[in-house]
């Protein structure tokens, strides 16, 4: 039953998130709002944590799997990739490395004392 409870909770919070986002025309993505609300719920009721943990752990361990169906969509864009594939690939590669570096350097510079000791 534990897994059913956990799944129902996750879906319910996503549902609330999506519903609120739509009804109030919020710029926040529904699942992100759902995550925030669940965070509040867990802070208020600590016993939820133990109930959720086995299921969320499994789901997050294989988060990568969930991106496979969208990635296979690459086959639909053959024509565009033949024409613009190099531009797209270079833009992704360079901008992702820049984003990794800029974020890491900014956060490190602003964190004092306790960081980078590990």
């Amino acid at each position, binding site marked *: 039953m534990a897994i059913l409870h956990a799944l129902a909770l996750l879906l319910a919070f996503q549902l609330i998130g999506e519903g609120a986002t739509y009804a109030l025309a919020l710029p926040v993505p529904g699942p992100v709002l759902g995550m925030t609300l669940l965070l509040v719920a867990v802070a208020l009721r600590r016993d939820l944590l133990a109930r959720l943990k086995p*299921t969320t752990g499994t789901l997050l361990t294989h988060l990568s799997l969930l991106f496979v169906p*969208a990635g296979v969509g690459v086959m639909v864009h053959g024509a565009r990739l033949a024409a613009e594939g190099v531009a797209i690939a270079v833009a992704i590669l360079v901008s992702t490395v820049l984003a990794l570096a800029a974020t890491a350097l900014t956060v490190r510079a602003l964190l004092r004392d306790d960081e980078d000791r590990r």
Partner: protein
Amino acid sequence: MNPAADVWVYLSASPLLWLTLTLVAYIVAFTLYESSRFNPLVNPVAISILLLTGLLAGTGTPYATYFEGAQFVHFLLGPATVALAVPLYEQMPKLRRAWFALTVGLLVGVVVAMVSALVLAWLLGASKATIASLAAKSVTTPVAMGISEKIGGIPSLTAVIVVVTGIVAAALGRFVFNALGVKSHAVRGFAVGLAGHGQGVARAFVVSEEAGAFAGLAMGLTALATALVAPWLAPWVIGLLR
């Protein structure tokens, strides 16, 4: 028609076959990843996509047929995002101490990720629709597709770009951080989650629970910040590039 071909025609049109094969391809890819001792360059998503596109091309199966089965996996992206609340809660004391650095890092990272992609694609002569499709590349798939549609991109192309971005961030993060001498798991996790959304988070959890929680936080905040910023910043930048 011979019986084997008959069974194939029946099964290849049902969602069951492609759902099963998506899981099998991922298990094969993950086993390779595991046996490489989680070398970031042996990316399980990239390997799964190669296996499946090969299979679909070889059997002449259209993507729409494939997705009828795979959509059940795709659907779980939403609940998985909600599930990030658990590691976030557990790392709360650390997150609270670092909130200022993380907020500034978030804004810098989101703008760099978006603007550098737009400018590079423009320099390399990409079309307007392609450039717009790149704007939300560091945001988790369903959210990125929505943003892309709003600013004149092609949502299905954005979905692919997002996945490739995640592969690049997960594969190269370690090398970028080592080159810069960034050692803290919190900082590394936050950066890889920002640049590589869910795939960055998955990679960060392989490294440590702490890195994973910071990556999850970054993924959520990046989706939020990009959803707020992209609809006006991206068209403005694209306008300047004309």
